[in-house]
C-alpha cells in the first residue's frame, strides 16, 4: 500500500487528508467504525466524532455491546488472568472456545497454582477433571443453568457429572469461570456471572473473560470517559446519545442511514459491508482490497510500527506496548487529528 489513495489513485498523504475531511464534513450521518487502534487513535477518533456528530462503534461492536448491556443490567464479578494464575485453583471453562487467544489465555493461567479444570463446551486441549459436553451456544447456556442450579442445591437429582463439577467448584479456594463473551449470548453471559456471584455465598469464585479483539475493551473504556456511555453512541444536541440498536455501525451502513464512514483499522481491516457508503479507511501496511475505498491512508500498527496503549489480556488494563519493528508510518491518532484540523470551518455537524 502506498502512503495514501483517493479514488484508487496513489496521492500524497496531505491530499488524502483533505479529501477525507471534505467527505466526512459533508455527510449528514457519518459513522466512525473499527476503532481498531491504540488508545491515542481512539481518543482522537472520539474527539472527531464530537465535532462532526458521528456515530462511534467498534469492529467487534456486537460482542462489546452485548457485554455492556449485561453489565448495565446486572453488574459483574470479575478478576484478572494475572491473579488467577497466581492464586486460582479451580477453573470452569464455560464457552471459552479454542481459538488462538483462548489457547494463549489457558496456557497463561496454567502456570502458578496447580489447577483442576471443569470444562463446559469447546475449550483448548487440557487435562480436564470433569468435562460437561455441550455443542453450540444454547447448549452451553443450558449447561450453565443446570450447573448453577446444581451448585445452589436446587435440583433433587442432578446428573452425576454436574454433581461432580459442582463439588469441584464449591471446593475451590479461589475459582474462576473463564469464558469468551464472543461465544456466549446475553442469557449465557448472565448465567456465568450469576453462577460466580452465587458461589461467593460461602466460597470464593470469580470470572475471567477473554477480551474482545482489536483493542475493543480500550475503545469501550475510552468511550466511557469521553462520552459517558458505552460505544454505539453519537454526540448530538450537545451531548451523547447511546442506543445499541440505533447506533450499530453495520446496520447504519447496510441500510444507508449513514452516508459516510471512517474506518480506523490498523489492527483490523474493514469488512465488506463498509463498501455500501463512501468511506475513508485508515489501514495497516497489508491492506490490499479488490477495490480501494474513496480515501485510504496507510497508518502504523500500534506495538509494531510505533508505541501504543493497548488493553492487555493478562492484566485487563491499559499498557504502553513498545514497537516491535519501528517504522516512520504515522499513527492513527496523527492522521485523525490531521483530518480533524482539515475540516472546513462550517463543517461541524453537532
Amino acid at each position, binding site marked *: 500500500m502506498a502512503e495514501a489513495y483517493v479514488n484508487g489513485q496513489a496521492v500524497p498523504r496531505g491530499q488524502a487528508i483533505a479529501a477525507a475531511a471534505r467527505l466526512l464534513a459533508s455527510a449528514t450521518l457519518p459513522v466512525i467504525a473499527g476503532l481498531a487502534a491504540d488508545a491515542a487513535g481512539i481518543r482522537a477518533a472520539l474527539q472527531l466524532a464530537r465535532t462532526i456528530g458521528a456515530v462511534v462503534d467498534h469492529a467487534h461492536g456486537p460482542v462489546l455491546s452485548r457485554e455492556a448491556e449485561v453489565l448495565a443490567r446486572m453488574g459483574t464479578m470479575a478478576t484478572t488472568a494475572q491473579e488467577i494464575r*497466581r492464586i486460582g485453583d479451580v477453573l470452569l471453562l464455560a464457552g471459552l472456545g479454542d481459538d488462538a487467544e483462548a489457547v494463549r489465555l489457558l496456557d497463561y493461567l496454567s502456570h502458578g497454582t496447580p489447577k483442576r479444570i471443569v470444562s463446559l463446551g469447546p475449550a483448548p486441549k487440557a487435562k480436564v477433571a470433569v468435562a460437561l459436553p455441550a455443542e453450540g451456544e444454547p447448549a452451553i447456556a443450558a449447561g450453565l443453568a443446570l450447573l448453577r442450579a446444581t451448585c445452589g442445591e436446587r435440583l433433587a437429582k442432578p446428573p452425576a457429572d454436574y454433581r461432580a463439577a459442582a463439588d469441584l467448584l464449591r471446593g475451590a*479456594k479461589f475459582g474462576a469461570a473463564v469464558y469468551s463473551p464472543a461465544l456466549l449470548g446475553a442469557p449465557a453471559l448472565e448465567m456465568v456471572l450469576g453462577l460466580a456471584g452465587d458461589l461467593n455465598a460461602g466460597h470464593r469464585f470469580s470470572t475471567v473473560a477473554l477480551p474482545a479483539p482489536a483493542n475493543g475493551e480500550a475503545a469501550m473504556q475510552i468511550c466511557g470517559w469521553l462520552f459517558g456511555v458505552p460505544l454505539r453512541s453519537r454526540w448530538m444536541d450537545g451531548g451523547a446519545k447511546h442506543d445499541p440498536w440505533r447506533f450499530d455501525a453495520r446496520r447504519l451502513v447496510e441500510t444507508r442511514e449513514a452516508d459516510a464512514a471512517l474506518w480506523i483499522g490498523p489492527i483490523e481491516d474493514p469488512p465488506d459491508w463498509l463498501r455500501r457508503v463512501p468511506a475513508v479507511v485508515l489501514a495497516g501496511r497489508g491492506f490490499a482490497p479488490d477495490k480501494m475505498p474513496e480515501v485510504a491512508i496507510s497508518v502504523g500498527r500500534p506495538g509494531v510500527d510505533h508505541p501504543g496503549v493497548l488493553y492487555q489480556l*493478562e492484566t485487563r488494563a491499559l499498557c504502553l506496548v513498545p514497537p516491535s519493528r519501528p517504522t516512520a508510518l504515522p499513527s492513527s491518532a496523527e492522521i485523525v487529528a490531521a483530518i480533524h484540523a482539515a475540516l472546513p470551518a462550517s463543517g461541524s455537524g453537532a
Partner: protein
Amino acid sequence: MIHLKGGYLVDPVNHLDGPGDLWIEGGRIVAPPAGGRATETVDCTGCVVMAGAIDVHSHIGGGNVNTARLLLPEEHPASLRRPGETPLSRIGFDVDTTGRLYAEMGFTTVIEPAMMPSNGLHAHLELADIPIIDKGALVVLGNEDFLLTLLRGKESRSAVRDYVSYMVESTGALGIKVINAGASAAFKANARTFALDDEVPGYGVSSRQIVLALQQAVDELGIPHPLHIHCNNLGVPGNADTALATMEATSGRPAHLAHIQFYGYGKEGRRGFSSAAARVAEAVNRRKDVTVDIGQIMFGQTVTISCDTLRQFTARNFSRPRKWVITETDFNGGGIVPYRYSSSDFYNVVQWAVGLELFLLIDDPWRVFFTTDHPNGAPFTFYPEIFALLMDRQARNNAIAELPKRAIAMTGLASIAREYTLAEIAIMTRAAPARLLGLADRGHLGRGARADVAVYRRRDDKAEMFRSTVVTIKAGTVVVRDGTVVATPEGKALVVKPGAGTAISRRMERYYEEAFGLSPQFFHVDPAALGRDEPFMEVPCRS
C-alpha cells in the same frame, strides 16, 4: 495583565480578610504594577475573592469510576426524559463535564484518591482528558502480594521504603493511600470481616502492621502528603472504635484519615446505630498529627466506588438499583455499588448528621477537609448545599426540621450553634489542602502564587453564592465567566519523585516475571503515552 478590582479578599495564609485588589500576570499573582495597566479589569465589587479551591478526595477518574459510568447508563443525562435531571445526571458522566463543573464552582485542583497501580495508565489517560483543573492521584498500596511478602519476611524498613518509592514513581502518584489494609487480600482467602489486628491469611501480617509500615515509608521518603488511610470496618455500627484505634496506632507521625464520617458510628439505641461524632471529633482535636476529610452524605441517588472489595461485597446487598460490580486484582480491586441515600431512612439520616457534626465539632479548620468522598457520599455538585449547612445555622435547622426526629435524636447535631466563617471556609478548602498536599504554589493569594482564583458574588444564600463563580481563573487564564466556562486549558497531573533505586527495580522485574510472567513495566505510566505536552508537574518532597 488581569486586574481583579474592588473585591473582598479572603486569604488566611497572608492574613487577608478585607477589601483589596489582585493583579495577575504570567500565570502568577503579582505586585500591583507601578502605573501599569491591565489588559483586563474584572469588577469585583460585592464579590469575595479566594484562591482556587482544592478537593483532596474525589473519585473523578480511573478504572473503577469508569466502570460506574458503564454500569449506570440509565443515569446518564441522555437517558432522561427532558426536561429532567437526577443527582447523578448533573455530575458529568463524561470527563469534560467533570472539569467544567468543578471550575464553575471555583475548584482548580482535585485529587483522585484511589489509583490502583494496575490501572495507573488508564487513570492518567482519563485524568489527562479532564480539562481545566490540575489533578493528582494517590496510588493504592497495602493488599498486594509483593508488599505482604516483604512484611511477612520481616524485611528492613528500607526495603518497604524502596518499594513505596518505586510504586509512586512508576505510577505517577502524588501520594499513597491504603484501603482497608490487608482486607482485599483476606477476602481472597474468604474472610468476610477484617479488623485492625486481624492477620491476612497466609501472610501472618496484621492490618495494623501494614498501615504502620506504609506510614513510616511515606514519612521517611519525605512525601508531603501523609499516608491517606481508609480504615477497616467502613460503615459498620460501632466503628468509631476503629477510627480511634487507628489514630492511636498511627500517633507520632502524620496520618490522614479519609471520609471519617463513615467511621463516626456508635451502637446505641433500639436500632444499634447512633452518632459517635463527638467522640471522634474529640480525638481529632486532641491528636495534632491527624487530619481528616469528612465524606459528607447528601440524600439522593449516587453510586459508591471503592477499592475496599471486602466492604463493597457486603454492601452489594443494599445496592439500588439492584446491580453491582466486584473486580479483584493483585492490588485491591474495586467494588461499584449504586446506592440511594433516603431522607426517610433512619440510618442515612444519622449518617448525614454525623458528617455535619464532625465538620462542626472539629475545632481546627486546618485539619478537617471538605469532601463528600465523591460520589460515595454524594456527587460533588452538592458542595454548595453543604457550604450552606456549615455556614448558616438557620439553613441547617430548616434541613433538620424536615428529617425524622427519632434519627436526629441519635445525634448531637441540633444543639450545635457553630457557623463556619468565610475565613474558615478558605482554610478548609484552600490553604489547608495546599499545605496537606505540599503544594506551596497554591491555596493562597500571595505574590508569586499560581494564579488559581475564584471570585464569588456575596450572597446571604450561601448555596447560591458557592454554586458558581463570577470568574474562575486557572493558572492566569479566565476559564469561567458568570458561571459559564469560556476556556478549557489543559491541567497538569501533580506528581512526587521520592527517588527510587535501581536495586528495587531489578527485584520487581524478577518478582513480576516469577509470579505473573510479566514485566512490572505493565503498570508504568510513561508521560509520553498520555498524548499531552508535559502532562506532569513535579511537587518537591521534603528534604
